[in-house]
């Protein structure tokens, strides 16, 4: 198990090297460097331009800049954001809890609805419910996040006034410290009456928007996996033994059908991160996705490079966990060999 774990970690090293190179190169292909984007019609005198380029090391050959970057990373130094002058790692760690909280609730929403809905569709295969669910999930899968988010805001928040438009908490009524960065937890710790409920209310719409695509994928995957399992001999045996249908489906079939679903959940993490960029923008959610978009605009090289790398690390880590979870769900898969 430990050997497997170490081997998996070793395998991620080339991935990280490639990522480091790609993010480093990609942002430099965009016209305008960090010094250039600061200047408006005033322009900047050649001396000042040269001075600041030198300060930021931009006057060095690109390969040398890259080597310096890799060297610093090897020492755990992600650099300093050019716009805020804060450490990139500090900024990331400040903003990441918001993204994590949102992603967690989005996934919770996707799993809580996707698994039962998919399982039910498999059981009622070919019926109206099955067809309807598959059609709806196709819509969910192809829904442009931006449009879906705005539609929900306009209808649920503006027209019906049921939920807040955006943000993480009601800024007029609540003001408390955030030691953990997770608004729901901090709200509970704050002892302010109603704060926790308000934080949850703010989570509903963004979690639905971010969870829609994973929900569709999970529902479809559960359905097809269930169909396969339902035709297995042991399910027929269970039925023949006279077990109740709910026990056959819930205990015998579903547990076995979940293995591919777990894989899909793991894979969804990366698309969740991609979706977070848009969702955070629509809902003014102060997470890392929105921060990265800003960094591109400002040509904030260190923030962008560090941010992409750290998010990738999260994705790789989650996939690693998913692999390990296989063994728990299905003891037949042994990581020892």
């Amino acid at each position: 198990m430990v050997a497997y774990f170490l081997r998996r970690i070793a395998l991620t090293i080339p991935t990280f090297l490639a990522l480091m190179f790609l993010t480093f190169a990609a942002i430099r292909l965009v016209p305008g460097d960090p010094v250039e984007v600061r200047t408006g019609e005033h322009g900047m005198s050649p001396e000042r331009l040269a001075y600041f380029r030198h300060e930021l090391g931009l006057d060095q050959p690109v390969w040398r800049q890259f080597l310096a970057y890799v060297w610093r990373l090897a020492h755990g130094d992600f650099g300093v954001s050019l716009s805020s002058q804060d450490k990139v790692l500090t900024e990331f760690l400040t903003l990441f809890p918001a993204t994590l909280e949102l992603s967690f609730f989005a996934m919770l929403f996707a799993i809580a609805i996707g698994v039962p809905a998919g399982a039910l569709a498999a059981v009622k295969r070919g019926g109206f419910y099955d067809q309807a669910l598959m059609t709806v999930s196709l819509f969910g899968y192809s829904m442009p996040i931006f449009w879906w988010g705005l539609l929900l805001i306009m209808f649920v928040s503006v027209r019906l006034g049921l939920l807040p438009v955006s943000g993480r908490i009601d800024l007029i009524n609540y003001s408390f410290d955030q030691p953990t960065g997770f608004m729901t937890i901090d709200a509970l710790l704050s002892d302010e009456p109603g704060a926790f409920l308000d934080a949850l209310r703010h989570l509903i719409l963004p979690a639905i928007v971010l969870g829609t695509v994973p929900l569709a994928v999970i529902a479809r995957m559960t359905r097809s996996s269930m169909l396969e399992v339902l035709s297995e001999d042991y399910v027929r045996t269970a039925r023949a033994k006279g077990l109740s249908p709910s026990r056959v489906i819930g205990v015998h079939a579903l547990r076995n059908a979940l293995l591919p679903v777990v894989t899909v959940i793991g894979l969804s993490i990366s698309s969740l991160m991609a979706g977070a960029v848009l969702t955070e923008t629509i809902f003014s959610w102060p997470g890392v996705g929105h921060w990265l978009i800003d960094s591109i605009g400002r040509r904030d090289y260190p923030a962008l490079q560090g941010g992409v790398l750290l998010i990738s690390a999260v994705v790789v880590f989650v996939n690693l966990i998913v692999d390990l979870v296989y063994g728990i769900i299905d003891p037949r898969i042994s990581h020892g060999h």
Partner: protein
Amino acid sequence: MKAPTFAGVALAALLAGAGVASAKTLVYCSEGSPENFTPAINTTGTSFDAARPVYNRLTEFNRGTTDIVPGLAESWEVTDGGKTITFHLRKGVKFHALKDFKPTRDFNADDVLFSFDRQWKPDNPYYKVSGGKYDYFNDMDMPKLLDSLEKTDDSTVVMKLKTPNVAILANLAMDFMAIGSKEYADFLLKKGTPEQFDQAPVGTGPFSFVAYQKDSVIRYKANKDFYGEKPLVDDLVFAITPDATARYAKLKAGECHVNAYPRPADLEEMEKDSTLKVINMPGLNVAYWAFNATKPPFDKKEVRQALSMAIDRDAIIKDVYLGAGSKATTLIPPTLWSFNDKIPDVPFDQEKAKAMLAAAGVKTPLDIDLWYMPVSRPYNPNGKRIGEMMQADLAKVGVNAKLVTYEWGEYRKRLANGEETTGQYGWTGDNGDPDNFFFLRGCPGGKPGDSNPTKWCNAEFDDLLVKARVISDQAGRAKLYSRMQEIEHDEAPELLLAHSIVFEAMRSNVTGYKQSPLGTHAFEGVDIQ
């Protein structure tokens, strides 16, 4: 049945929310996070807006105008032919307190010297803190203007200039000249955390800083000791909302009271909504089409006038600015003092343009370059589209315009070197002083590598420009600028295209809000009914 009932109750509770009584809080939906809270090291309006509630300057812009009024300097005298300015500082002004810092003294001349020195003197201990780029201090030519700054006592500061320039009083009202607390700076230096100066600001302004969470919220509290126009609300909140559609939705839902930068596409609907109100004014900027007066045939003013008449600017404003632009008649927008309202509009008359070209001896078809802006700017939303419309108009008077562009940095550099025959460009004003626009057409700006792409140099215009920097009374200066606008109109070094129109939206129960011609947002004197 128990479970669904519980779920139902929980859902109802969630949807209903929980109301809590609170003090009067004004929420401004701002468009982004500030870089930090020290305007001297920032360049974006977003950052300036975030620091403005906290700070004051020696001089101030009267709210809603570009007029200069006393700030932390109660009065000043200009002597020595405009080369010496003596500032008399306001007494009894208190700095804000933070959790870990309580000021022990009132504002005095040391704070003024510190705020200048940080940007000016490389040996100041704060010069390198937070990256140390003082873009505005340098862009506004402060190192070239300032000779010395000394205090004669705790409430008097004497500023000596290298060349007479009264427009510096407007520079001093700009955000980068915010006056910070030297006592706070020293305290942090001793503590070993000087960068906190830029993250948790201490000023003398109408609101004191409370807290900032990146990409989420900035909180301020009303400063009861403020010497000027008192804040009418207890708390001020900047709800950071980068997406314009989300800002509109929040405004509509009542989650914010004032909304930064509404989308032009939403304006019509906003205006129909009785719970909202929309205000607008021309922006402090101008877009123009420059003729390079050093390149024939544009060295003849008749040719420049003729081509100016060939362009249908109404169509451009309608189709490209989508209503968020107004036709420019002079280099400065009508909100600036000294605007000459007698200057006629350039007519759109292609027949006359053709006749004038023929009279000037220009053979058609004439081939020219038309450089178009590669980026969208507040005064020019779509350079390429404008270029195409101009190209079509020019074809009708026998001029073949070849569209040319470069990457923005390169574009600016080449224009400054005068490589174009004609090209689009523009300007965003800084300090609301007419000099800040007209210097663009002064002769020094026309030298290669400098900011005037027309390379036009007119002796009378330049002479008036220099004279206007020495006169200290505004009415006298306005007369000179008025004459300069006539010369520029007649000489047509450029075709003035448009000033943008800046819109702001708010809940209809917000009172006392004044839109600033400088494009800034300020909340003292603003109330919620």
